[in-house]
């Protein structure tokens, strides 16, 4: 079966700076995959390359067996949705108006929202648990609420592949658990998820697969149990093993390096 996303030896560089090189990974049907790695290693760029919004500068990207450049814009946007970290909205758009934009790939020049588009929007709002916010103004929402509205926007696109850029950021522990819950539900619905996530505990228990991008440009792929070993984490994130555990015991705070 053709993997939905197939990257072979993919690299991306801005004019003078290379972001990453030689990334190869494939996403299979029914998988829920995490992308982990230290800050600045190129996780966001990799997601943008996978979504086809940035062209890879080397290697081969295939979406369901096709190069993104050969697909029509609408065809591609019905297949892949990328939920970015940040969404800056001018004007007082309501949540519902924002999520409706996710239907753009399905609308024609003069064809407006049809009943099936309304249903898709309602469903996306329900899935991301923001239907109660539908007439609220996006710019007045809390960080966690915005996070969920962005996911609703991605779901309204009804993609086969959902790329999430740090979806758990700004979410409290309860909302994080709900998000993971939603990812499981989406996987059962046949939507393939690739999410960049910083919380290694969440990955460990909830993802079928993980790609760990190291600061030394390595890429380790496998099931979380095999990939997220102390040694590999230490090498990828470039932090020392066997460090004294982070504790907030009284002694550490008061002896000199506390708040001056």
């Amino acid at each position, binding site marked *: 079966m053709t993997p939905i996303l197939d990257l072979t030896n993919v690299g991306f560089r801005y004019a003078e700076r290379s972001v990453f090189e030689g990334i190869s990974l494939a996403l299979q049907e029914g998988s829920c995959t995490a992308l982990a790695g230290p800050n600045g290693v190129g996780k966001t760029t990799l997601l943008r390359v996978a979504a086809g919004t940035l062209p890879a500068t080397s290697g081969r990207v295939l979406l369901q067996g096709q190069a993104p450049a050969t697909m029509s814009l609408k065809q591609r946007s019905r297949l892949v949705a990328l939920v970015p970290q940040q969404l800056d909205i001018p004007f007082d758009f309501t949540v519902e*108006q924002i999520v409706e934009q996710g239907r*753009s790939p399905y609308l024609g020049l003069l064809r407006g929202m049809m009943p099936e588009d309304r249903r898709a929007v309602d469903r996306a709002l329900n899935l991301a648990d923001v239907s109660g916010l539908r007439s609220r103004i996006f710019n007045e929402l809390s960080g966690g609420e915005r996070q969920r509205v962005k996911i609703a926007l991605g779901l309204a696109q009804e993609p086969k592949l959902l790329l999430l850029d740090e979806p758990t950021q700004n979410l409290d522990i309860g909302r994080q*658990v709900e998000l993971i819950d939603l990812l499981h539900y989406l996987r059962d619905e046949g939507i393939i998820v690739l999410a960049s996530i910083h919380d290694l505990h969440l990955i460990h228990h909830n993802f079928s697969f993980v790609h760990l991008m190291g600061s030394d440009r390595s890429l380790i792929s496998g099931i979380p149990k095999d990939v997220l070993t102390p040694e590999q984490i230490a090498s990828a994130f470039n932090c020392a093993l066997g460090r004294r555990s982070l504790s907030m015991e009284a002694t550490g705070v008061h002896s000199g390096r506390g708040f001056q």
Partner: protein
Amino acid sequence: MEAEVNKIAVTPMTSVPFGQRPWEEQPRKVRPSGSFKLPAILVLLFCTLIASILISVSLGAIHVPVSAIAAAAFAHHPLSETQRTILLAIRLPRVFASALVGAALAIAGLMFQGLFRNPMADPYIIGASGGAAVGACIGIVLFAQWSIFGFSAAALLAFLGSLATMAAVYFLARARKRTSGVTLLLAGFAVGTMLSNSTYLFEIFDSNPEAGHRVVAAWLHGVIAVPQWKQLAVSSILLALCAFSAYPLMRRLNTLALGDEYAHQLGIRVETTRILVILVGSLLTAIAVSLGGLIGFAGLIVPHVARLLLGPDHVRLLPVTALAGAIFLVIADTMARTLFAPTELPVGILMAFLGGPFFLYLLRRNKREYAL
């Protein structure tokens, strides 16, 4: 994995009753208030426009009561010859022109505000005013007697000048097959300022300095001239074409509010959309400029107020701003020519006095919206 799911699924969801899964269909809430009101608002605005046109036509040095106009139209009580001439040759063309100018400026303002994702944008933002000013000056100073299609040379050259400037600004701002909003704004500002100031040269070379200077000065402040019917017909057809082609662009402007990259991801051809918006917006601005010179504030305030009242959905705002802009300018122009009669105030100056304070009031009242 199964156990994992069961364990977390019992967490109560914030907006869902306990025990109900969020993805189960919930009963639809009523549509957000406003969407059903749109036809009513449009009918109301249309009636207001007709009423303001009638009242405006009746006012002036020689008062022609609205009842007399109605009697002439429906009960075959003809008006006197003088009244007929005043209405058909002077007042009606001017009132129609002001309605066209208002609608064109308001739609153009809405388009540029949407394109630049900024409520402070106006139709002249990418330099249209400078090009129009130079064109009009050449027309007024060098070709005062010419006329084509009912357009005076000044009107025609202002039209072409604003289009040419916006095209030049667009190509100056374009780099690597795309344009950024900020570059467009900066290029527009530089080119527009250069051209506006170059009009001073025409005053130096003007053979009849007094008269020419006065005409140019009035034009720069915005005065709606009495156009020929032929010019009105051409302008209305252009306006109708622009408004029609603006409609599909409005939904794309909604999507562009998410940012260029997101819009691209949603299958929108960002650069094509940008070119089309600039093209239609420029044509609209050129229509307005050729009829009324440089009238400020109308294109800024009308879409802004409409957005405050109806929300930012551009599709709904399009007809509302068009009608509201027409009403606003018909009223403003009537005041401009009657307030200090027989002296006439440039409508642009009146607009600045009316619009400036109102705009500042909005600015103070609604601060959060103004982030670049």
